[in-house]
């Protein structure tokens, strides 16, 4: 009954007037950026990070988390109505959701997506609440060797799930790790790679890297590609209520999507996007008549929409319990905690239970708000799509620039972020994935510190990484992941999965 007591504490925290308000702001902003193509959760959270400095940590996290899962809802609205995914994780929703809209069943599709998402959100909140303490207990037995290996596994996951060439993804990870080492070495006080610039002494904030690579570079590539053009020939939304037959068809898909998403979300590198792709593939595979898919099959909406929401939420598990971010959004969450001098890891749950459980409970409340925000107000969100990109991008740029400045109240950060915008454009041109670079840059100092400690304890014997069983297991899993992807048959499968997206 520990779980119930914990959840009670969580709801007590999350239901305070201020936290409900921050949760609402978060999911509202999340829905907004989910609807708008051209801006995703990563730059939005990066923009808002400096602002959260003035908030209590739990309110900050509740709001930022709301942006992340709120974006999943918003993204599916545009996928269904105008065949335009606002978020990468709702790409597959376009396939059947838009077809349903063309048959005049947009309202039903949106309702099923919302019901499925809410169900998945509820289940994954419980999963998070149950799995968190278990993993946390395991994590307390971890030594530096285990932590090092865990980070290797996390990076391997990020590499495997990156688009395109495996080799380039690995290289981007290593480059990110190196960027993370810029600044003062904690052990010796040596200034590394600072080029004598005092502002670099504290290292390159990864918020700045995120802002450059995901905020600025994205705008540049959008504009080079001729801007984001949208054809808003709004389909008739139709009735909202699904028929009994709709529900019967959708229910099993929702269940399968929830389970799949909950599991895949926990994996390093996993999260919303992988979950929705996997769920769509699964539904198509087990359907009696696969030819219905792509022509408005309700399972094709229900499954992936449930899966991406479940995955978005369970991806908090490794971040909250182990302190290891599995994707770029979680990396920024780690940053939000560190701004408040909270070191993410198993001690958060014991030392700061209101924070952990408050966040968990807020996700359920947030999901409820999203259902209300998205169903009756669907028409209003669609109107937003008529906002031309020529108004959107200067606003995003300005918010990013002010946000970057307010990180440390100095303009050096603004120039540095512009530099990373250039880097991001170059990487985009060379088809090098930016996400592994960002993850590497946050894990760099942690990896070095844990490797240093592990080797100090073992008197310089590197075999400690493979002789300790948990560490060996983690490294073996990482190796299996990379080898699997390098096998030609699976590589083509992976390419197919990503091709559907582009």
């Amino acid at each position, binding site marked *: 009954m520990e779980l119930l007591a914990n959840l009670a504490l969580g709801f007590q925290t999350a239901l305070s007037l201020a936290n409900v308000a921050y949760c609402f702001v978060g999911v509202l902003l999340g829905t907004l950026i989910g609807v708008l193509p051209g801006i995703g959760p990563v730059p939005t959270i990066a923009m808002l990070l400096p602002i959260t400095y003035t908030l209590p940590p739990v309110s900050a996290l509740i709001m930022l988390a709301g942006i992340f899962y709120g974006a999943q809802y918003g993204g599916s609205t545009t996928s269904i109505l105008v065949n335009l995914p606002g978020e990468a994780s709702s790409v597959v929703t376009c396939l059947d959701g838009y077809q349903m809209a063309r048959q005049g069943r947009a309202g039903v599709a949106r309702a099923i997506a919302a019901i499925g998402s809410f169900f998945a959100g509820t289940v994954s909140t419980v999963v998070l609440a149950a799995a968190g303490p278990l993993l946390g207990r395991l994590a307390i037995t971890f030594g530096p060797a285990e932590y090092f290996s865990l980070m290797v596994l996390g990076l391997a996951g990020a590499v495997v799930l990156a688009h395109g060439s495996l080799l380039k993804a690995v290289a981007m990870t*290593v480059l990110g790790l190196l960027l993370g080492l810029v600044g003062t070495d904690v052990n010796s006080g040596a200034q590394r790679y600072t080029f004598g610039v005092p502002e670099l002494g504290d290292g390159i904030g990864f918020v700045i890297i995120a802002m450059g690579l995901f905020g600025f570079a994205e705008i540049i590539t959008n504009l*080079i590609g001729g801007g984001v053009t949208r054809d808003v020939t709004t389909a008739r939304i139709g009735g909202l209520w699904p028929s009994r037959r709709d529900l019967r068809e959708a229910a099993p898909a929702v269940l399968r999507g929830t389970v799949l998403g909950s599991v895949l979300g926990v994996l390093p590198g996993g999260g919303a996007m992988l979950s929705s792709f996997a769920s769509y593939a699964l539904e198509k595979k087990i359907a009696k008549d696969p030819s219905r898919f792509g022509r408005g099959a309700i399972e094709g909406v229900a499954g992936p929409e449930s899966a991406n929401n479940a995955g978005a939420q369970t991806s908090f598990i490794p971040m909250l319990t182990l302190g290891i971010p599995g994707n770029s959004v979680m990396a920024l969450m780690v940053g939000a905690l560190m701004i408040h001098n909270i070191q993410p890891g198993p001690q958060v749950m014991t030392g700061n239970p209101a924070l952990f459980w408050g966040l968990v409970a807020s996700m359920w409340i947030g999901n409820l708000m999203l259902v209300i925000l998205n169903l009756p107000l669907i028409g209003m969100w669609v109107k937003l799509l008529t906002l031309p990109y020529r108004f959107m991008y200067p606003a995003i740029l300005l918010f990013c620039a002010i946000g970057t400045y307010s990180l440390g109240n100095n303009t050096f950060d603004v120039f540095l972020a512009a530099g990373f915008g250039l880097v991001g454009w170059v990487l985009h041109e060379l088809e090098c994935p930016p996400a592994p670079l960002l993850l590497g840059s946050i894990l760099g100092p942690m990896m070095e510190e844990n490797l240093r400690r592990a*080797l*100090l304890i073992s008197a*310089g014997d590197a075999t400690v990484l493979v002789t300790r069983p948990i560490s060996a297991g983690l490294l073996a899993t990482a190796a299996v992941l990379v080898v699997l992807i390098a096998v030609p048959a699976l590589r083509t499968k992976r390419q197919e999965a990503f091709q559907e997206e582009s």
Partner: protein
Amino acid sequence: MMRIRDPRDFWSGVLCIAAGLGAVVMGRRYEFGTAAAMGPGYFPTILGALLVALGLVASGRALRRGHGQSALGAFRPRPLVMVLASIVAFGVALPKLGLVVASMLLVVVSRLAAPGFRWLEVLVFGAALTALCSAVFVWGLKVPMLLWPAFLGQ
């Protein structure tokens, strides 16, 4: 006869080799230490060497095989230059000229990145955005920054 069959992979490799070499060469100035007592140069040197190796493989493979349609696209510098210039202009203007001038600059310069620039529209839009940001960041969140140019004296 050497020919670059896959320019994207080739230049990615070159980039990695350069960054890795830079890390190793600069890393030589930091104490390397031993495995049991890693100095500040230990981890970056290993990473740098790894990056060089990865870069060599990527570039090497790009010389031997490519996959057809991977030539670099035509370069249109305008969006790149204007977007980056608008951010830099913002950074330069902010400390002395304040948020109002800096954000107007950012909006005007960045709008030059896309076609269809109309002065009236851009100025009105910029003014609205500036007012919003001033309200949110300076009055609301109390981010310490100048609002109007310093020489106007406040």
